[in-house]
Structures are given as structure tokens and as C-alpha cells.
């Protein structure tokens, strides 16, 4: 069953809002405490339960296997690098688990991908990549980046009202984002029309020869123009269109 927040324990720090993969943990505008805005959409992934430093979030178990009186609580201890679970059953029986979540200090084992040799042509031509999008196979040369496509990274979220108020670029950004968010004309089913394709910039012309009809298919829909705010909705729209 979905998560719920003990309002008296929550101090509105925002860790759950930050980590929720469904974007359904929000700060209540009246009480300034976190709450689940859409319990139906909760996956019970426990991300917010584990991230909450005040242990203010809990999940009710389903009544068929966890009848009244049960409790499933978790403590993610980052400093010790462990996660502990305590499960209490209705008859008072208890199960305790303690497991590692990292074996090295945080931030010390980040792979340096820049030092890893690039995949060879054989690897890129491998049949294992047949179903992968061509930008992963690097058919057109190197990896596509915002820079290689002539775009710049722009801040899309405003953390502070002062930034929002004072920044002139903010208003320009918002008007552009609103224009992008306007409903785009839909193509006929099966016609292959892509969402907002016409509003997206063209990618640099490929120099690599197309090897298959799929490889020659432009995948511009996965690239957002400069300044576009990538939201879950736009992400899913672009993924759905590719």
C-alpha cells in the first residue's frame, strides 16, 4: 500500500521529494510537510522511506499478508554503509536484517569513464546492439552530447524566489517552455509522426553511411532544444515517439 507521512515527525527537509521516482512526494502548501499527492501511483519502492532522515514515512502492508499489528520499518545508515530492516509480526515475532549498501566509502569508487577505451568498430557492429538506438551505437561518430548538437545546458528549476523574480532569462525560459508544453498536433496512428518533431532543431548531418532503414531514421525526437525543461512528461513523450 502507498506511503504515508507522520506529519508530526516530518520537518519538510525535502529528501523524499527529491528521491521519489514517481514524483508523487510533495510539500503540503499549508502545513509545509511532505505528503503523498497520488497514493494510487505509489510503487512502494521504499525510496522515500529509506531517505527520510526523521523516519517520518511509513508504508502499510497489505492486509492479507500483514494484518493489523504488524510493522515493517527500515533504517538506512549511510555513515555505516548498512541498511537494517525490522519486521514485527502480529504475534510479536520479529525478524531483523542488516545488510551492506556499499563496501567502499561513498564517492570513492566512481568509475572514470573518460579513461575507459572507446568501443571498437567490431563492438559497435556487434549484433548485440541490433535493437539499440543508433546514438548508443555511435554510428555517426562519437557520443552525442548537448555541445555536439549545438545546445547548452540551462538551469531548468528555480530553487529560490529571488532567482525567479530577478532573472530576466527566467521569464524568457518560461515562455519558451510554455510554448513547448503546448499540445502538439498528433499524427495519424501508425503514420510515424513524432511529437513536436518540427519544433526540434536538426541534428548535424551524418557523415556515416546508413546501414539499415532503422539506422537512417532520424532520432531527433530524443533531443530537446536548448532551454527546454526536461520533465518526466516530456521524457516519456520523446521515448514513446522513438
Amino acid at each position, binding site marked *: 500500500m502507498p506511503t504515508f507521512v507522520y506529519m*508530526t515527525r516530518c*520537518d*519538510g*527537509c*525535502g*529528501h523524499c*521529494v*527529491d*528521491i521519489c521516482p514517481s514524483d508523487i512526494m510533495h*510539500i503540503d*502548501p*499549508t*502545513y*509545509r510537510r511532505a505528503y503523498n499527492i497520488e497514493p494510487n501511483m505509489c510503487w512502494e519502492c521504499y525510496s522515500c522511506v529509506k*531517505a527520510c*532522515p*526523521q*523516519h517520518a514515512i511509513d508504508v502499510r502492508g497489505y492486509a492479507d499478508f500483514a494484518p493489523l499489528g504488524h*510493522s515493517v*520499518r*527500515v*533504517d538506512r*545508515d*549511510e*555513515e*555505516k*554503509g*548498512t541498511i*537494517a*530492516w*525490522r519486521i*514485527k509480526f502480529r504475534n510479536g515475532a520479529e525478524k*531483523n*536484517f*542488516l*545488510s*551492506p*549498501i*556499499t*563496501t*567502499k*566509502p*561513498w*564517492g570513492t569508487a566512481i568509475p572514470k569513464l573518460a579513461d575507459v577505451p572507446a568501443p571498437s568498430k567490431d563492438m559497435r557492429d556487434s549484433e548485440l546492439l541490433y535493437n539499440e538506438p543508433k546514438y548508443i551505437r555511435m554510428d555517426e561518430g562519437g557520443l552525442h552530447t548537448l555541445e555536439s548538437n549545438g545546445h547548452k545546458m540551462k538551469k531548468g*528549476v*528555480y*530553487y*529560490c*524566489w*529571488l532567482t*525567479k523574480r530577478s532573472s530576466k532569462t527566467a521569464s524568457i525560459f518560461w515562455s519558451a517552455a510554455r510554448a513547448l508544453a503546448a499540445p502538439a498536433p498528433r499524427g495519424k496512428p501508425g503514420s510515424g509522426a513524432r511529437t513536436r518533431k518540427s519544433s526540434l532543431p536538426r541534428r548535424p548531418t551524418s557523415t556515416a553511411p546508413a546501414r539499415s532503414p532503422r539506422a537512417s531514421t532520424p532520432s531527433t525526437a530524443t533531443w530537446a532544444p536548448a532551454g527546454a525543461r526536461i520533465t518526466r512528461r516530456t521524457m516519456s513523450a520523446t521515448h514513446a515517439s522513438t
Partner: protein
Amino acid sequence: MFTSNPFAELSASVSPAIMQAYVIVMAVLVVAGTLFDVIHKHSAQYFFENMRAGKAKAKKSVGGGKKIGIAVQTAVVDVAMSGEFCNQRRRVAHLLGMYGFVIFVVTTAIMVFGYPTPATPTPQIVAVLWYIGALMVCVGGYWFWFFIRVDVAAEGQSPLRLMRADLFIITLVLSCTFGLIWAWLQTAGSPVWATIFLGLFLIDTTILFAGIPWSKFSHMFFKPAAAFEKRVGKANGTAQNLPTQTRDDPEQQKRHSMELLVKAPMNMGLGIKREAPRHY
């Protein structure tokens, strides 16, 4: 300005007895408001019932000496150092506001009751502390209000959006602000403006103390109680049903699952908390 007692200067137009009566009325309002809050919200009943339930489920008994130790720990860590805050900026803002308010209230009482007229010269340190206390509340309060408050920092709401939940912080900060402005205008010799700001100071202070049942003023009483209960729960093994096993316990180090961490340092540093949560 910072070394003068504003209440002694005010005694030229307002009798010290009236000032003292006002302070007493405010103190009575705090006691009455808090008691009303406790009875109306059943917070004391909840606290004692929870304690009783915790005791019934306890795995270890916690003796009187241990409880005194926990009370001292609660007073030092949770109350005096605002240890419950995870966000250090909020913790600093809270400490500024809390100590500023305590200094402001105590020095006000000392000046109003001990040195109400210029005939009894006020020690400079008391007057200076009154200003420092008010300034601390203003710094902590405005910092919190404009930059740290969750819906401002996270949701980008206007700082001028007011809710009933803001009653305490708004009246507290405005009370100190109006008090400082009134003291400055009085020293600067603007009687009309000084009277206006004295009126605002009194209205705001009255709302702050009379509005306790509707504001979070009484958190200064029930938060320490909750922190004490939390620590007692940890000591007696109930811990609000949270897991109590930790890796530094030699017994737990024998677990099969802990084999991977045999050579790992006991402090792994911070993971997701290395970055403040603001990617809303």
C-alpha cells in the same frame, strides 16, 4: 543607541507599573495558552499513553539514573543545540532565533522590572544584550523566511504568501523588528514615529503570546518531550519499531551479511546527503 534601555526612556510617558503589568499579562497568556493547547490537542495524554505503551513493549528496563542521563542528553543535544535538524542551515537559523528570543525576553523582563526608569541606571551589558537578542531573531528569522523555508526554497512560492502556520514565525520576527525600530526612533528623537512603532510592537507581541493555541509557539515545550520519548524508546529497545542493529555492534559484525564490510571503515561518509535536496 545600543547601550540605552528603551523601557527607561519610555517611562517618561508610560508608567513602569503599566509596563510591568503588560509583561505579567503576557507571561500569564503563555502559561494559559500552552495549557489550553495541551488539553485541547490531548498532547500530554498522547505523550503519557505512548510512554506507557513503550514501557509495556520494552525489551530492556530503563532505570531512573539512565532516564536522568537521557534527560540531560535531550537537554544538551536536542534542546540546547537543536540536534534534531538535519539541514545545517536550518539548524543555525533555529539556534539564532531560539537564543535570540530567549535573550530578548529575559533582558526585557530584567529591564522592565529591574531598571524601569532612568533613576536606576541600566547596566550596559543588559541593554546591549536586548539589541543583540532582537538582531539574532531578525537574522535567523528573515534568513529562514526568505531563503530556507521549504516552500520558498523548494516550490518557489512567494515569501509574501502567508498561512496560519506562519503565525508564530511572522509575529516573532515582526515583534523584534518593530521593537528595534521603536528603540532606534525613540533614541533618534522622532516621538510620533516612535509611538507608531511602539503600537506596532505591542500589537505584534500581544498576537505572539495570545495566539499560542493557534500557532506553533508551544513547540518549545512538546518538542523536547518528544525528543526525550524518542531517546527512551531507543534505550528500552522499542525505538518506534525501527531497527536497532548497527554495524559497530560486535555481535552484528559476526553476521554473514557483514562479511563484505569486514575491511571497510566504520564511517563511510555521506551518500545522498552529500547534496542538499533541491531537485524538485
